[in-house]
């Protein structure tokens, strides 16, 4: 069997001595689309940050299917909308071009090829008409597409997206899903923090269900069922969640 692109072993993350995530173990297969699912405060974003190496775990290991020093060109990241300053003076094209920065090193200027890649990716997400627009003039969905184009321009192996479907309309959701599938077809791997239980089975082949501790990590088919969902979301506290996944 092929080596996993990411493996996590006994990962524990704590803030101020209090555990936020405890003893998470699992593997992400190359070419998979994985959803991280859990209620608010379950540690989804913390988990994402810990595996991207932005947080130092209390214990445990995160290893990649590539060299550690290749990380900056092999990992792409799409932040949640609203996490950047919308009034920041950058254009749509500037943002997409930022995806090329890790390939350039810190001193070289972007070349014609980098510009072409950035433009091509904006075209893929349907934003090529907006290249000169300042990002604050876009709608939430359009902004999300531009950040997706930046990640695509990174031409990475492993893509992390933090709630990409939050607050976007149907058209943008469709574009994002298409792009994620295209990444998979080209041998990339995608990990998404996801909120909508209704679309888990439709969009993702693997799930990581967490609520401080791991409930289930594996194929959507075998992992994602009534029992695990109620354990993840503790439906005795939130009874309205019970029907939302079928």
């Amino acid at each position, binding site marked *: 069997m092929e080596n996993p692109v990411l493996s996590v072993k006994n990962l524990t993350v704590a803030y101020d001595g209090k555990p936020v995530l405890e003893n998470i173990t699992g593997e992400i297969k190359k070419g998979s689309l994985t959803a991280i699912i859990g209620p608010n405060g379950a540690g989804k974003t913390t988990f994402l*940050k810990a595996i*991207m*190496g*932005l947080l130092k775990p209390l214990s445990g290991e995160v290893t990649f299917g590539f060299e550690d020093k290749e*990380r*900056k060109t092999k*990992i*792409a*990241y799409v*932040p949640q909308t609203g*996490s*950047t*300053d919308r009034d*920041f*003076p*950058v*254009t749509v094209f*500037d943002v997409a071009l*930022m995806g090329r*920065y*890790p390939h*350039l090193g*810190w*001193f070289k200027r972007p070349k014609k090829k980098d510009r072409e890649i950035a433009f091509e990716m904006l075209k893929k997400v349907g934003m090529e008409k907006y290249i000169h627009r*300042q990002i604050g003039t876009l709608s939430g969905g359009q902004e999300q597409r531009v950040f997706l184009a*930046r990640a695509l321009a*990174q031409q990475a192996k492993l893509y*992390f997206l933090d709630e990409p479907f939050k607050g976007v309309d149907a058209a943008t959701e469709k574009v994002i899903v298409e792009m994620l599938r295209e990444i998979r077809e080209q041998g990339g791997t995608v990990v998404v923090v996801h909120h909508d239980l209704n679309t888990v089975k439709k969009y993702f082949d693997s799930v990581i269900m967490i609520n401080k501790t791991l409930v289930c990590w594996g194929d959507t088919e075998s992992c994602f069922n009534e029992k695990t969902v109620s354990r993840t979301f503790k439906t005795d506290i939130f009874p309205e969640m019970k029907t939302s996944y079928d």
Partner: protein
Amino acid sequence: MTDLFLLFQDYTFCVVSLGSALLGILCGVLGSFAVLRKQSLLGDGISHGALPGICAAFLITLCKDEEILLLGALAGGVISLCLITLITRFSKIKFDCALAMTLSVMFGLGLVLLTFAQKLPNSSQAGLKTFIYGQASAMTSKDVFIILISTAVVLVTVAIFWKPFKLVTFDKVFSQVVGIKVWMVDFVLSFFVTLASVVGIKTVGVILMSAMLVAPAAAARQWVSRLETMTLLSAVIGAFGGVLGTAVSSSFESVPTGPVIVVCLGVMAVFSILLAPKRGVLWKLIKRKQNRKKLIERVKSFESSD
């Protein structure tokens, strides 16, 4: 016109306007980053912290050499910067509160030390008080040289590290993911603001220093919407404000240069905030009125067709 020509033949005027222009460029460039990093007042905190540094340097060495006093200012600025950073990092106190506390406490300490210093025999010649309001007209070619070196260092560094500086200012998490040492960029940019505040103190004084950083950047942002052009325009506005302020203050007797520069920059900022296309307040008002009129006409046309 001939007056202006005569002005440029005046040596003092040339020195002061050159120094002020360079300072305008330095502060304009760094101000763009400071404003976008939501650290507009960082320069203010640092410059106020420089005052106790200056007084302490004088009290310890009893020496009024400018280099020593400026080193004291730098130390005071760095201590303030560290205090603000440490308070925000290790307590739940927010940046604005940490800044306000550090700024006023350090300035208070500075005033206390100043009182002690002024009781010493040679204090009047040291001109410690001029650091509070600045005294641009006393600028020497050595001062200009110090500003020139600082500006050159900052411009070259910003040009070389443009991409990481831009990326960290825009999106910290993404920067970390792609392997930039964010804390290093944070440190360098904050240190540069400290440096600019310290070299600018003699011109505009500790109280008005932050206007030099904030006003050109705020004005520039109104006209353009790319970081590259904003930084460039901010530098141009800063330089222009420096020269204009010097010229205006030279035309009147005993009008202090530093405050006039700050007022010039302020006027340009207000002008930009009101009038800039797309973002300007007046521009928006006019546009809204036009749109409203169009809409009313359209609604009327519906009504008449019924």
